[in-house]
């Protein structure tokens, strides 16, 4: 496209700000800003460099003192790091948000109906909309869940859907996270820090609040309590301090005022779950679990798990305890099933999807596979069961050896891989010293589904802080920034 050097925005802070074909969150063209970024740009370019540095340091300190860290796996001693963040907020207009909100509500409602259906009548399979083998070959399909009635028929109480923006600015869904999505604590703490560091700017923008999230989450969990438990005891189940998201578990438990428990704190007896307290056993009614299906009950799932609670699944079957999310929800965020979500929405809701999918090729289909293998250097290839940016090939940035390796893996287990054309998703301005430079961003809004669907306006904007990188996961050098939805 163009360079800003020829335009009216010829200022030193922007001398490295090069536009390309990706949608730019700040510039509509080299000559024009998106109007909602005007104030922000003015504010940042008017602040002296030293003042910006001072505020950046204040923010750093604030994150450090709160111990907002995550753990990187695969290194010697699970290194703890501060989650990197960028000071410039990402701004989303009320109109843009309205579309996102409508689209997510629609999508989550449909996916929940889909889960209810495949674990009961299986109408959508009988009608041939989704092939049976896609569902039954999914590792996350739990036959233990077949025929099981869950409270309010809600399977996915807490989800975080990853959205990106295409070249034309349209929001599309990249990934559904229906198991145990994390990151919401970063959304909340980013906001708290930003409000403290840039109070004036924040006020002048009329940003919609998000602080009610924890209360909404508590309400959602309460609404899913087993019948006859008017004062439910709600707990958050964490794998423990060594988990990468432990900070978040502790944070949410504290904000909701519920007990943070580990598997060893819980016992089951006669299909009732209790927690061990110093005053004796106390019955547990709702478990917001941040432990994967596989590890949650060594009797029902992986026998080598020490994170879980023996007998928990039977208590759940008996209806004595609610788990949020339910077991087996991973079948609906499988990356191969993803390709069918638009059809799923049409099937259950008789509506056109508000938010589109990214074009997806299933390697299990021969034609698709050939296409993916022939274009490995242009495609992003993902293993269907992985998350967190692991097990992924970004074609344009890969080496020949990596591509060969992936070609081999795809041939060996085609069901396990999908390919998507590399999308240059949108870029937002980030601060590097006294320079603003564009970096790729995505958006993960958090959707709660109890007695109704509720979405706090905003979400976690993740940034690929490495220049040119498309991977936003915190484990892969990603960071985050605050997301301001305007009212």
């Amino acid at each position: 496209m163009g360079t800003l050097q020829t335009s009216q925005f010829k200022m030193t802070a922007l001398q490295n700000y090069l536009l390309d074909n990706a949608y730019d969150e700040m510039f509509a063209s080299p000559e024009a800003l998106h109007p909602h970024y005007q104030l922000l740009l003015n504010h940042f370019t008017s602040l002296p460099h030293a003042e910006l540095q001072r505020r950046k340091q204040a923010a750093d300190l604030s994150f450090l003192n709160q111990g907002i860290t995550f753990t990187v796996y695969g290194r010697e001693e699970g290194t703890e790091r501060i989650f990197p963040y960028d000071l410039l907020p990402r701004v989303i207009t009320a109109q843009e948000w309205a579309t996102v909100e409508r689209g997510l509500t629609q999508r989550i409602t449909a996916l929940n109906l889909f889960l209810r259906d495949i674990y009961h009548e299986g109408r959508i399979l009988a009608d041939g909309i989704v092939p049976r083998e896609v569902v039954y070959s999914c590792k996350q399909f739990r036959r233990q869940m077949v025929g099981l009635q869950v409270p309010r028929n809600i399977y996915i109480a807490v989800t975080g859907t990853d959205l990106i923006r295409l070249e034309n600015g349209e929001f599309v869904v990249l990934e559904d996270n229906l198991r145990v999505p994390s990151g919401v604590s970063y959304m909340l703490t980013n906001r708290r820090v930003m409000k403290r560091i840039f109070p004036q700017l924040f006020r002048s923008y009329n940003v919609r609040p998000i602080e009610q999230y924890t209360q909404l989450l508590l309400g959602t969990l309460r609404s899913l309590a087993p019948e006859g438990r008017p004062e439910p005891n709600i707990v958050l189940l964490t794998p423990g301090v060594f988990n990468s998201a432990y900070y978040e578990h502790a944070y949410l438990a504290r904000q909701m005022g519920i007990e943070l428990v580990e598997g060893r704190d819980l016992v089951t007896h006669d299909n009732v779950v209790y927690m061990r307290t110093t005053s004796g056993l106390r019955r547990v009614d709702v478990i917001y679990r941040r432990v994967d299906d596989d590890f949650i009950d060594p009797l029902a799932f992986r026998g080598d798990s020490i994170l879980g609670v023996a007998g928990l699944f039977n208590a759940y079957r008996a209806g004595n305890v609610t788990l949020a999310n339910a077991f087996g929800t991973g079948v609906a965020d499988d990356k191969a099933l993803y390709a069918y979500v638009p059809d799923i929405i049409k099937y259950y809701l008789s509506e056109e999807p508000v938010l589109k999918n990214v074009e997806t090729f299933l390697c299990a289909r021969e034609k698709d596979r050939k296409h993916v293998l022939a274009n490995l250097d242009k495609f992003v290839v993902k293993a269907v069961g992985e998350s967190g940016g692991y097990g992924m090939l970004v074609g344009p940035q890969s080496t020949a050896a990596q591509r060969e390796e992936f070609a081999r893996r795809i041939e060996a287990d085609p069901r396990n891989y999908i390919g998507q054309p590399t999308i240059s998703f949108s870029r937002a301005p980030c601060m590097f010293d006294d320079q603003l430079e564009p970096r790729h961003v995505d958006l993960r809004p958090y959707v709660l589904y109890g007695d109704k669907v509720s979405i706090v306006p905003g979400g976690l904007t993740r940034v690929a802080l490495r220049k040119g990188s498309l991977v936003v996961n915190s484990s892969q050098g990603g960071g985050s920034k605050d997301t301001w939805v305007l009212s």
Partner: protein
Amino acid sequence: MLSRVADSLYWMSRYLERAEHTTRLLDVNLNLMLDESSSGADHRWQRMVAALGRPAGEAWDDDDPYKLSHSLTFDITNRISVLSCIIAARENARHVREQISTEMWHRLNSLYLAVTRPEMHSDMHAEALLNGAQEPGEFLQSVMEAVHQFQGVTDSTMSHGEGWHFIQVGRYIERASATAMLLEAYHHDLWKHPERIPEGNEYLEYMGLLRSATAFEAYCKVYTADLTPERILEFLLLDENFPHSLRFSIESLVSALDAIQRESGKSRTENLTRLAGRLQAGLRYSSVEEILRGDVVGYLQDILRECRDIHSAIYELYIDYSIQTALAG
């Protein structure tokens, strides 16, 4: 409160108390070594190892006090070394990070970071220490100070609720056991020449015993600087007001246990109440003459056993209870 949380708070506190105690014994004995002929050294180090409960693999078998000090300070394969205790305390604190105050966490974490940084080992290690060129005293002082600060910060920043009381229980049960073991290790030496006022080296030994329990100054305030075995025994066992005496430790333990019982509303505490109350009464209503008429070592060993029984009773009641009992009651 979750049983696991109580368990972590209890051990966090015990490990820190243990770290402080070991540190002080090392400090006192390294200090004494400077004043004394080497003839008594063997015996003194043996006694110190005994006062630490003769930890497995830790024996005084050569004449190298610096090597022993190093092992008791920095050897992480040695479970009672100061470093192991600090690491264990910090690990327990990490598991209940949300239950303790930020100030407590900071204090403990910076102690941990200070003692685990790699230069620390090379500083303390090998040549410097073996040649005796560098005194570990400064390091030991800094550990003791940090633990004291942690205790102060704990008292002034954490709610004095159930969790805080579990911290007290851990601290005082550890302290009571340590003092009892200390007295037992010194017993033989104390009564070698009971008929005469100690002088010279003997006096220094007595002082060392009192210093090992931070008791020298407090003792002098009560009895003046005349050190006699009966008085030392009386002071460390039965003094009502001195925080390292057995009586004080057990009284504090009992009041913390009472508070926990009130807060948790736990029934069926009879066994624990009985064990702790009996030990408390024994210390409260005994005289040193009575104790001396009997078998003192046996008496101290009984106290140690009772401390262990109290520990088990606490676990049975609050932490490691069987589900059947809990459901029945």
